């Protein structure tokens, strides 16, 4: 007794078409998932970021990009989004590292903690969004 499995040329084309559609669906939903995780980090960081003038808190950003190999979402403070502290006229880039890394400060490591907290559920968030996009 045997079973013969054959893939004819038409089926092969159809499968390739389906895979192409599926690939873009997965990439798009992965980007959505990564951005959702990034937004989760921002929500937690916003609630815990030390606030004096508000400039540092306002310098948070989220940028997404898809390249040939990766779906990326960068979340951070400053850089192109740096703000000028109205009280000291300093750029937030000049003191954000000290505020984050100086362990004698009350709110040190707030951003790292936000990342670690949001990362706890990152896998599930990503899987659920991709699954939903694929109709699963």
């Amino acid at each position, binding site marked *: 007794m045997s079973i013969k499995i054959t893939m004819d040329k038409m089926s092969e084309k159809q499968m390739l078409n389906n895979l192409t559609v599926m690939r873009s669906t997965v990439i798009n939903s992965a980007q959505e998932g990564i951005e959702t995780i990034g937004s989760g980090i921002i929500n937690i960081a916003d609630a815990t970021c030390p606030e004096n003038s508000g400039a540092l808190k306002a310098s948070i950003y989220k940028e997404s990009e898809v390249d040939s190999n990766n779906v990326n979402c960068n979340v951070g403070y400053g850089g192109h989004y740096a703000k000028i502290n109205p009280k000291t006229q300093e750029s937030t880039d000049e003191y954000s*590292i000290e505020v984050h*890394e100086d362990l004698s400060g009350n709110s040190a490591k707030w951003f790292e903690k936000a990342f670690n907290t949001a*990362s706890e559920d990152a896998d599930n968030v990503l899987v659920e969004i991709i699954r939903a996009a694929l109709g699963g």
Partner: protein
Amino acid sequence: MATLLEDLTKYFINCNLATEVGKDIWYDYDPDEPAQAIIIQEYDSKSNSVVCNDASVRYVQITARDVSSTWASSKAWQVYKYLMSIDNVIHLDNRWLMFSIKNSPIKIKTDSKQRIVYGFNLFMTTNFD
């Protein structure tokens, strides 16, 4: 059993990265003097890494400071390079630890006495104190 920071400090002294606790290296304490100092501190973070029932993930910051930016930077880099050069599992007398360095040394601040502080962070899985 000594604390994690105490064990790490002794380890660094044994590796000739520092000479004596209270002279050029401190743990869990940031002394006002001298200016030239290596300081090892633990900080609170959050981890989902449940390891096993007798180990946990802990976060450590190592800093070096001096009025000379050159000394502070080079000492922080010396410790960092040493840790980068060894296997990331360290076996001490009553402790094992597996570490991962999170960043290379950066300038953290200039303190109120105009001393420059460089430092880097690592996290480690280790058995309980």
